[in-house]
């Protein structure tokens, strides 16, 4: 008997394997749905330097029985909007997107929004409605479903509206099956953490019971928008190189290298080509397959390249991180630090961290860890994350006066043109020695500040306790000795209190 063979589309693949994208069950799926859509909205704002206004609503589609149940999802943003002709593919075709670039965005795979729509479609047999405008005279409304087998959008309705106010932004609406009651805590946590890492956004959430959650912006300051960059030599492989050669119109290898790789100038190009044993005069399009392999191999072994350019990254910055933490957690003390750019495998990255102590931070059994990557809060699989390992296994907190019951939160934000996620679910960051090194050094820096603060605080508390002791006992000594000495007037101890306060400072 012979096997039957068939081909499946990417949409079909992700339909069958929706687990790997975070759509495992109705509870996890609603969380992932909200997350993917909010992240698309935030990207659409930030790329264009727009202060985000995002509205999220989950409403029961039928009389609420018991979860899992059918809900209607609606997300509105004031982002860039999507050109009319792109809308169907952007929401109906898996692995289609505008973020396959060397640029720091939340989205990377061209998958997230579609998974949300697809899950809604397969659980409720419904359609998705998208309204968007790029700020022109018109806005466009599409009603569509996905042809999963063919990985194509099917447009069911298509309307055009006048857009007098020149509104720009996108509204997405569809039905989906969800277990809201079980996902609620995670969704709220996600929004709160988003509010920390995007302190310049206004987020509004209306939940199925009609409860309003508002996360107001605390600043109008925004990080500079990310820019696109060309690859660093260490970041390429044979396939990328072949594509680059195909696209180039450079006539010599030297020129090719200078134009298409970051931080490669005249002398670096010459020296490298000499090292690779490829003539700098060679025409790129004439390279033999053997030479292509040789080139890539040499790139890996050449140590003379400058490190990747990080100007394309868009970290949050100390001020915004500080604002975000303060706004959502209102701690007693905050220290933040941004590391200088570093690189792994040709990708630049920047680590930013914060520690927050006391205030509204609860006293818990351990340190509260907040992880972010390209401004996405990471909520699942904490124990597998590199920041968890550094925070809990590598840092010697005791050294910084942090005890097991010290109310402490740690924030780690990693931004990069390519975050080393372990899965498409974007939940935790792989063990990269370069990243680990940056995270631990950053944490040590903020921990030093914390330790100074704590020591000052302990000192002041001790001092207060000390003076309390004096003010408790000195008057008693005065009183008892008066009685014992058979005197009338109890002597004043104010002067002694003052000198107790004074010599404490000297010591």
């Amino acid at each position: 008997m012979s096997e039957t063979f068939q081909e499946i589309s990417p949409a079909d693949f992700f339909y069958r394997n929706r687990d790997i994208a975070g759509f495992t069950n109705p509870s996890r799926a609603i969380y992932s749905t909200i997350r993917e859509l909010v992240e698309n909205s935030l990207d659409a704002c930030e790329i264009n330097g727009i202060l985000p206004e995002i509205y999220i609503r989950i409403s029961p589609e039928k009389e609420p029985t018991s979860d899992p149940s059918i809900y209607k999802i609606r997300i509105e943003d004031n982002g860039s909007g999507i050109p009319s002709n792109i809308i169907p593919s952007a929401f109906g075709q898996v692995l289609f997107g505008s973020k396959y670039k060397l640029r720091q965005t939340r989205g990377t795979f061209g998958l997230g929004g579609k998974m949300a729509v697809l899950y809604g479609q397969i659980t409720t047999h419904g359609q998705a409605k998208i309204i968007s405008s790029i700020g022109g005279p018109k806005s466009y409304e599409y009603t569509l479903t996905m042809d999963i087998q063919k990985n194509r959008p099917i447009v069911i309705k298509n309307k055009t509206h006048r857009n007098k106010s020149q509104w720009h932004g996108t509204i997405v609406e569809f039905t989906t099956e969800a277990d809201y009651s079980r996902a609620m805590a995670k969704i709220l946590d996600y929004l709160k953490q988003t509010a920390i890492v995007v302190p310049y956004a206004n987020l509004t959430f209306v939940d199925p019971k009609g409860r309003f959650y508002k996360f107001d912006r605390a600043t109008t300051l925004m990080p500079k928008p990310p820019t696109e960059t060309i690859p660093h030599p260490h970041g390429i492989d044979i396939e990328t190189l072949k594509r680059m050669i195909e696209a180039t119109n450079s006539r010599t290898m030297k020129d090719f290298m200078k134009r298409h790789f970051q931080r490669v100038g005249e002398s670096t190009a010459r020296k490298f080509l000499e090292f690779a044993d490829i003539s700098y005069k060679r025409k790129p399009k004439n390279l033999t397959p053997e030479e292509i392999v040789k080139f890539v191999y040499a790139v890996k072994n050449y140590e003379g390249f400058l490190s990747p350019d990080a100007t394309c990254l868009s970290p949050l910055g100390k001020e915004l991180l500080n604002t975000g933490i303060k706004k959502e957690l209102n701690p007693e003390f905050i220290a933040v630090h941004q590391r200088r750019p570093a690189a792994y495998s040709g990708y630049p990255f920047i680590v930013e961290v914060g520690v927050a102590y006391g205030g509204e931070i609860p006293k818990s059994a351990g340190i509260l860890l907040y992880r972010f990557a390209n401004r996405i809060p990471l909520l699942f699989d904490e124990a597998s994350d590199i920041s968890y390992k550094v925070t809990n296994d590598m840092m010697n907190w005791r050294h910084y006066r942090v005890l097991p019951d010290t109310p402490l939160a740690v924030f780690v934000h990693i931004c990069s043109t390519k975050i080393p996620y372990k899965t498409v679910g974007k939940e935790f960051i792989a063990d990269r020695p370069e990243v680990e090194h940056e995270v631990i050094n950053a944490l040590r820096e903020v921990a030093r500040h914390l330790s100074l603060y704590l020591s000052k605080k302990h000192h002041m508390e001790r001092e207060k306790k000390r003076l309390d002791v004096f003010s408790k006992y000195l008057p008693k000594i005065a009183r008892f000795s008066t009685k014992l000495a058979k005197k009338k007037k109890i002597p004043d101890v104010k002067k002694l209190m003052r000198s107790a306060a004074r010599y404490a400072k000297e010591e």
Partner: protein
Amino acid sequence: MPRKSKKKQRKGAVKERKEKVISSLQNFGEKTYDQIVSGEFPWTNIPSRSINNIFYDEKLRQYILGDRSVKRTARNIRHIRPLTQLIWIGMFADELSRQSKTSTLRDVYYSAQAYEMSFTDQQESDNLITDLETVIGYSREDFNVFPEERSAIFGDLTVEYTLPGYEGNKLNLTSHPDGMMIGPALTSSELVNCKADKVIAIEKGGLFTRFIEEKVHTKHKALLIHTAGQAPRATRGFLKRLNRELKLPVYIFTDGDPWGMHIAMVIISGSANAAHLRDLNTPDAKWFGVWATDIVDYKLPSDQLTELDVKRLHELKKDPRYEGKLWKKEIDTFIKINKKAEQEAFSRYGLTYIVDEYLPAKLEIAESL
């Protein structure tokens, strides 16, 4: 009349001492008060009672404190609380003394709470009482603080109370056949008339009762004192008074083992714990039994020494109080025969043997020591 003048002099002794105690308490208060008034953190020096400041004084035949002292000052955060407690205890002692009220160690511990001066535990308040003793140089019984334990006395001594409400009342200490408790009322009494010519201190209650039954107090003209084990300080102080004021020789009768021997020694030479105090020991008192040599000479029923007994004997051997020939010989004999005997062991020869035979023989030997 010589008799009367002697009596008067005695009467002065209790009163005079009480006045001295009160004035040294007041001194302590004034010193502290003046320090505060002059803007100084109050402080006081307390002679150190640590082991390396306790010395045996051959002349006084007791332990004394050396020259080292510790300064306790309110400037020091660790001292201010105990200093306050010390002054409070001073105040409390002053009240007790003036009002002639007595109090137990336990009372002191509880009374403090009324002044928000609570002590962590009884140990802490006991230690501070000892500090006050050290500072003013008088023992707690002098300022009317007594421990719980009591011992008893029986014999032909007439005392006159100085205790308010009983002032002038007289009592003969043969009035009650169980003996009279040696408590604050008795120790603060004047000794007005005494027919006895010696004191016998007895470790065990059973034997004390036997001695009364057998009329040792008349047969031997003795005051009998039951120490109830290690003699309480009040009892040691009282023995000292009997010895000094009435010139009565003191004889001590204990079990024949290292512990009994040491009960006698503490009466004679005092304890290291009371090195800061005087007048608690009676250097001329004599231990007359049960000796180790008695066990052999009288063929007494005996037990083997335990490991602990032997260890204790070796400790005593190194103790400066045990320098004398008699002590050395007895310690060595205990070790050699490896035996010990209780006071009751004499019952083997009948109930009266101890009083009729042993006691006169041993008293005679003791007198000649």
